[in-house]
């Protein structure tokens, strides 16, 4: 197993890269969608329902569908991951914004902030620790889902897991799954530390 250490390291790097890219895209999408959902109750219900459907469909099914259309590789894996994370993140961002005390939004308006200033200077910073909690949960879930990339030639630690399963080779399965577990624990712990620092004022 130690002979394959560099393979494990490389796969772990790829795995992290998949998660990081998927998370970055997910956040970039979920922030505006979450703001939209929080500001407009009429949009919120159908939007969350649609994302909920995506969330309920097993990731593997989405992935299989995507592969059928666009072929193998990291691309379909990333799309699957982003689709899965949207429900968690959008709902979380909307809830975090709803949690901002009305008095603070009211004061922000009364003091002469524009809508954008109120969002950027008061509502998002105030909601930040809660949003960070959602990002942590999404990140941990994405570490697990990223394994599917290995199934479709997308790289990452899943490669060894699926290869090991096919060859009925326990050590290879472990070489893939143990780092995944460690990654999940490390990322969770890291986010919790950041969350604590970000919540100093709460």
């Amino acid at each position, binding site marked *: 197993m130690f002979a394959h250490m560099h393979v494990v390291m490389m796969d772990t790097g790829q795995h992290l890269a998949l998660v990081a890219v998927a998370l970055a895209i997910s956040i970039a999408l979920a922030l505006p969608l979450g703001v939209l959902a929080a500001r407009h109750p009429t949009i919120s219900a159908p939007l969350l329902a649609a994302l909920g459907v995506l969330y309920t469909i097993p990731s593997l099914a989405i992935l299989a569908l995507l592969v059928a259309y666009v072929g193998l590789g990291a691309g379909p894996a990333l799309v699957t991951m982003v689709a899965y994370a949207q429900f968690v993140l959008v709902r979380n961002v909307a809830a975090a914004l709803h949690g901002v*005390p*009305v*008095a*603070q939004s*009211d*004061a*922000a*308006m*009364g*003091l*002469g*902030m*524009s809508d954008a*200033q109120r969002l950027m*200077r*008061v509502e998002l*910073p*105030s909601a*930040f620790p809660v949003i960070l909690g959602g990002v942590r949960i999404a990140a941990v879930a994405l570490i697990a889902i990223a394994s599917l990339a290995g199934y479709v030639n997308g790289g990452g630690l899943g490669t060894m897991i699926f290869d090991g399963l096919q060859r009925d080779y326990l050590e290879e399965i472990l070489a893939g799954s143990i780092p995944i577990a460690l990654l999940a624990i490390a990322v969770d712990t890291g986010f919790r530390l950041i969350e604590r620092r970000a919540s*100093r*004022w*709460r």
Partner: protein
Amino acid sequence: MNSPAGAPVRFERVSVRYSGSQTEAVDAVAFDVRPGEFVVLLGPSGCGKSTLLRTVNRLVVPNAGRVLVGDKDTATLDAVQLRRRIGYVIQAVGLFSHMTVAQNVAVVPSLLHWDRARIDARIDELLHMVRLDPARYRDRFPKELSGGEQQRVGVARALAAEPEILLMDEPFAAVDAIVRHALQDEIAEIARRLGTTVLFVTHDVDEALRLAARIAILERGRLVQYDAPLRILTAPAAPFVESLLDTHDVVRRLSLKCARDAMQPPRDGAGPDVREDVSLREILNDFLRGAATVHVLDGNARRIGSLSFGDVVAAVASS
């Protein structure tokens, strides 16, 4: 500091009806507030005080009528710009919990792009003004403050950019009586010194009597009397005003206390003499006849103290 003169405010038959409601929250209210005047909006819960107040900074838009600030119809002004000229203190305080005291106070100056040095100097000046030691309080977060300290920061934040008008919506409701009296004295003094026009909402008659140059009394969205405190006490214009005074027991408390209880050390100045055991209620008549000061005599006709209307109100309000 050069004090900016407060702006006048004029309500011209202002009506507000919230969507989905059958009745007007504010119903054809009309009155004038002079530059630098301290006006209290008084009335029971739900009578439309907050709604009327929020028409001034256009957080509420009237369905009919006009609100003029500094002789300009607010409907013609940019709401965001208008609000930066108007300080606003809300009952729930609404300090931004992720910002320090200093950052909270600096909000409007930084929206106005003041330079850093000017903002820093202003923060210290304001914290001194509301009697919070900058060295101790600047870098605290709101959760590290008592209710009274939060209220003070709320006032400092509202005053930061030297507003022409200060809107205060039950700003001291959440603090105990002693702190409330201290804050009332401070805000009255600050407003007088800066020349700021103040519109102050309360449902507490004593607070209104203590602070107001004039009191606007609202009943279910309508203005029932707009007058100086002394006139409200002595010439209630409607049964509603009498009952408002009754429920706060003001007249009885005026009857129970006498000149001796309210007097301050003897002052110079013309004014009628009263015996020390005369009730405060009777003394109001002297003020009504135009006296600014009343002198208090003991049984031997020696002058032992003097009284202004403010002293009378302070004496009954402190009970």
